């Protein structure tokens, strides 16, 4: 997530964004290794804490699980910030699953997009393809650098998907030095 975008949003918009990112990452019922850190940060943002108990509580909260509702009075530029952030952050798979597409369409509706919806979906898919290429390159790091790296390690949500070495040990709200 980009700090400059997060900083522009008020708390309601920020929580909406965290929820959208979290739900997108979890939509296909599995969390790739590349997505674990993103999911953690989104849920930590929503919980307002990096404590695992608080994060799990946020993940099972009624707010997180409920259908998306439009943000009243959201300016177009802020809607775009939120949508582009969801796409750039949560579309780290090389392609969208049907569940992710469905969710993305709901997000587009709730953010107030009226025209260009198909183009927005096409852009999101193009971005996902670019991120997919990035993941593919990472899986070939041994070739690129002469070392062995495991870039693909899907982790299922059930269980301890969030308890990984991807878990930061710092407060997500604290400034970065």
């Amino acid at each position, binding site marked *: 997530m980009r700090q400059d975008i997060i900083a522009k949003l008020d708390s309601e918009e920020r929580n909406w964004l965290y929820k959208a990112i979290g739900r997108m990452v979890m939509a296909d019922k599995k969390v790739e290794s590349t997505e674990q*850190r993103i999911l953690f940060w989104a849920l930590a943002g929503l919980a307002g804490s990096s404590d695992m108990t608080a994060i799990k509580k946020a993940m099972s909260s009624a707010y997180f699980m409920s259908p998306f509702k439009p943000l009243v009075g959201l300016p*177009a530029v802020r809607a775009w910030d939120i949508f582009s952030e969801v796409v750039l952050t949560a579309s780290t798979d090389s392609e969208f699953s049907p569940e992710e597409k469905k969710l993305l369409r709901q997000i587009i509706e709730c953010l107030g*997009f009226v025209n260009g919806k198909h183009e927005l979906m096409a852009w999101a898919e193009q*971005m996902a393809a670019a991120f997919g290429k990035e993941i593919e390159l990472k899986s070939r790091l041994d070739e690129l*650098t002469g070392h062995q790296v495991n870039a693909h390690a899907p982790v299922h949500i059930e269980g301890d998907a969030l308890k990984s070495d991807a878990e930061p040990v710092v407060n997500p709200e604290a400034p970065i030095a």
Partner: protein
Amino acid sequence: MRIEVLRMLSEEQRGWLYRAVAKLVLIDERLDNTEQNEFNEVMQALAGSLDMMDVQDLMRSESFSRPLTAPREITPERAWALFVELVRTAVVDARLATAEKAYLNNIMDCLGFAELGREPIFQWIELMAKAHSIENGFAVRLNQIIPQPKA
């Protein structure tokens, strides 16, 4: 830059990334709106403020001007993470100038990437630039895709 990436970096790696991003933005010579935020972010981190005097002092300093060398004992995964973050900044304005391409090549040398895999890496970078070009197009015609009620 992405919070989740910055947080996983050591202080040295973060400093390296900030310098690398600042140099990249300066190479472009054309600082557009999409790059301005990234530039402000790194300058705030490196110079401690966005005051023009502080920024100029920083850019004249030896620590900023000296060539980048790889952070100590960096793993390939971390080198890749740094490179990806840099690429994401390079393509945010949807174009990759020749000088930026040469700079990224130098960065790959610096981070120990082999010559062999650079073609697919640049193909990926082009793909990212194209996707950002579409993104920037939406941002320009925002009032058409999200018509706002008249006040």
